């Protein structure tokens, strides 16, 4: 056993990686060597801590000191002050991580973590994901051992059913029943697949789990293989997740070396192996039938269901397909029992859900909450509220398939059914916070733009219908829309929902329907008054100069790129609306707040 007096944990998730954590790790190693500390202090790269906004994050144990925004230039100071002399580097400590008397709080006491319940993320930021031994140390692969040696496949399925776990990919289908279908399907060759094709804009829950704790998914897939009678698993992951792919590859390799994947696992005669399949990043490949056809090496296009994958999936064989986060729950359920899991959450939605917080929020990052937590708690307590004290307008969940939750539902407990009821959906867990400065029509247009791009083109409702919807939305945001357009938009949306082939098309109109439901007045303002209330849609904006405030300093006319502003020195200036291109340069430069955008 190597004994170190201190462990320096550095987040190497994608978020922190982009803000330079690899360099930080490198510098730590150099500095430790320079100070001859390399045999006393261990540098560990971990997965995501969740507070991506203030990365790179470094935690130093045994003190548990939580440093944020660490640049490589800061490392020599941490080494010489903290690691050598034992003095905390206060300027780098996360503001909420020490008490008033300068005592380091444990992570559970930090506001960001206090309200969270980390089940699937329990190892993220705790273990080194590239060392299988660390996963094993924190009870890894014990669930697989228990399932293989103490339980029958049917008992495993019964436990999953009793836990009340529902699919975390978005639709929320009961996981245990899915396993049962696959178990009961006739056939001697079956497959277990994992959907890691996370495609919603702004969502990175699955990536973080795979980067921070890849073995939890491998273990769960092996358990699923045992339960349904499969000996081969595939993880379908997008090639745009290079760090996750690398960690998964290492994890599979290490599991094979220890015999936790492969032949005769735990001497029980059970065989199971896993391979990766890299997707090229088509959104439609997150749809289960398209995903499976892509695994087979064919074009990623969906097909009608039934037959469902449980009967006829990959290579025409019965296939179990679950999402990354769903799998990450399984080992915990087997170890702690279904009652433990069912004790978390609400009546119909059990357990926890990971959300990727993005948009207008202070703590952009990854949070895991018990089902039934309210939106207000997520945004204002965990998320730290909205920057600049702006007013909350809505939260968008479920990405391009979901909808928005307006301010009136801030106190509603979040679970599958409540979200569906108000016209949004759980989705895979992306949560984008929208404040008063965002235009809801523009947001609907953004998501439609995305689905039009990502539609595979196989069925006409999706291929043509979403395009027509986008055209209408573009007309509205350009001030050329009519009230009839809104009605057409609604009819189109309902028809596409009813007739599209797969989940992509069926849910594509959701952003439009839910914004129409809660923010119809904004649509009307665009078509009737030709105004964008949030001041986003450029074509509907007008920059004007307030005569009373203008001092005639001439600054605005100098920065105007098209020469639309004129006037006499020391007299109020005016903007020629025909020439104005609405770039906003004048407003930025004006020192007297004399330019208005409306």
């Amino acid at each position, binding site marked *: *056993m190597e004994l170190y*007096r201190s462990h320096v944990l550095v987040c190497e998730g994608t978020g922190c990686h982009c803000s330079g954590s690899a360099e930080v790790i490198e510098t730590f190693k150099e500095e430790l060597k320079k100070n001859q500390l390399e045999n006393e202090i261990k540098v560990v790269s971990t997965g995501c801590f969740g507070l991506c906004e203030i990365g790179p994050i470094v935690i130093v144990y045994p003190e548990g000191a939580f440093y944020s925004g660490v640049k490589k230039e800061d490392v020599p100071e941490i080494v010489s002050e903290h690691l*050598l002399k034992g003095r905390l580097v206060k300027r780098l400590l996360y503001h909420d991580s020490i008490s008033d008397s300068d005592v380091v709080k444990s992570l559970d006491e930090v506001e960001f973590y206090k309200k969270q319940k980390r089940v699937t993320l329990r190892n993220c930021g705790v273990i080194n994901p590239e060392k299988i031994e660390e996963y094993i140390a924190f009870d890894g692969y014990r669930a697989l051992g228990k399932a293989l040696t103490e339980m029958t496949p049917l008992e495993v399925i019964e436990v999953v059913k009793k836990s009340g776990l529902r699919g975390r990919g978005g639709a929320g289908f009961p996981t245990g029943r899915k396993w049962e279908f696959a178990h009961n399907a006739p056939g001697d060759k079956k497959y277990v697949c994992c959907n890691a094709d996370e495609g919603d804009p702004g969502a990175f829950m699955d990536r973080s789990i795979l980067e921070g704790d890849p073995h939890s998914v491998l273990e769960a897939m092996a358990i699923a293989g045992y339960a349904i009678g499969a000996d081969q698993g595939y993880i379908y992951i997008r090639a745009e997740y290079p760090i996750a792919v690398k960690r998964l590859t290492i994890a599979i390799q290490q599991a094979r070396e220890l015999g*936790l994947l492969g032949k005769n696992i*735990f001497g029980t005669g059970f065989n199971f192996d896993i391979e990766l399949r890299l997707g090229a990043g088509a959104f439609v490949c997150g749809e289960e039938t398209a995903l499976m056809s892509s695994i087979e090496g064919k074009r990623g296009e969906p097909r009608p269901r039934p037959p469902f994958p449980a009967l006829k999936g990959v290579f025409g064989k019965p296939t179990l397909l679950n999402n990354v986060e769903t799998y990450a729950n399984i080992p915990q359920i087997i170890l702690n029992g279904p009652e433990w899991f069912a004790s978390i959450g609400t009546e119909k939605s059990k357990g926890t859900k990971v959300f990727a917080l993005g948009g207008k929020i202070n703590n952009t990052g990854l949070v895991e909450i018990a089902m039934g937590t309210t939106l207000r708690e997520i945004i204002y307590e965990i998320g730290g509220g909205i920057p600049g004290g702006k007013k909350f307008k809505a939260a968008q969940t479920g990405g391009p398939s979901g909808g928005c939750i307006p301010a009136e539902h801030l106190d509603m407990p979040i679970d599958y059914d409540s979200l569906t009821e108000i016209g949004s959906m759980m989705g895979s867990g992306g949560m984008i916070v929208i404040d008063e400065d965002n235009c809801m029509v523009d947001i609907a247009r953004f998501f439609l733009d995305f689905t039009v791009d990502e539609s595979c083109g196989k069925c006409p409702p999706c291929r043509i219908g979403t395009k027509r919807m986008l055209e209408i939305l573009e007309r509205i945001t350009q001030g050329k829309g009519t009230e009839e357009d809104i009605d057409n938009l609604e009819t189109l949306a309902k028809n596409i929902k009813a007739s599209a082939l797969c989940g992509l098309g069926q849910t594509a109109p959701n952003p439009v329907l839910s914004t129409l439901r809660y923010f119809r007045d904004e649509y009307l303002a665009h078509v009737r008054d030709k105004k964008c209330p949030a001041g986003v849609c450029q074509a509907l904006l007008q920059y004007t100069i307030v005569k009373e405030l203008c001092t005639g300093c001439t600054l605005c006319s100098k920065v105007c790129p098209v020469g639309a502003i004129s006037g006499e020195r020391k007299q109020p200036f005016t903007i020629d609306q025909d020439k104005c291109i609405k770039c906003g340069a004048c407003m930025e430069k004006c020192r007297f707040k004399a330019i208005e955008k409306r």
Partner: protein
Amino acid sequence: MKSLQELEEIRKKTLESLYLRKDRAGTRIVVGMATCGIAAGARPVLLAFLEEIKKRNIKDVTVTQTGCIGVCRLEPMVEVYLPGQEKVTYVNMTPDKVARIVAQHIVNGQPVTEYTIGGQQKKND
């Protein structure tokens, strides 16, 4: 992997090296490592503690350092916090003294009085 025992062995073995990240209970050995401490030779003392703990395979002990305690002339100084006991401060530490402190104090709970701040002063009187 042929058996659950094998898994359990890896688990136990690795957990020992990870206890640092788990909780902060247990015994703490704090070495004064400000400029004065380092100059007086605190580093060999700290290393000796690590070595001794490793040799005896003692669990649940953290070795950490702190800044200047204020009596620089008595450096290197080491504070030992045993759960539920008063802090014990050792002064004028050398690596040679470490083995005895670990055996007598950390393992058996009996402070080595003659190395403590009180004991040393008595000797000087």
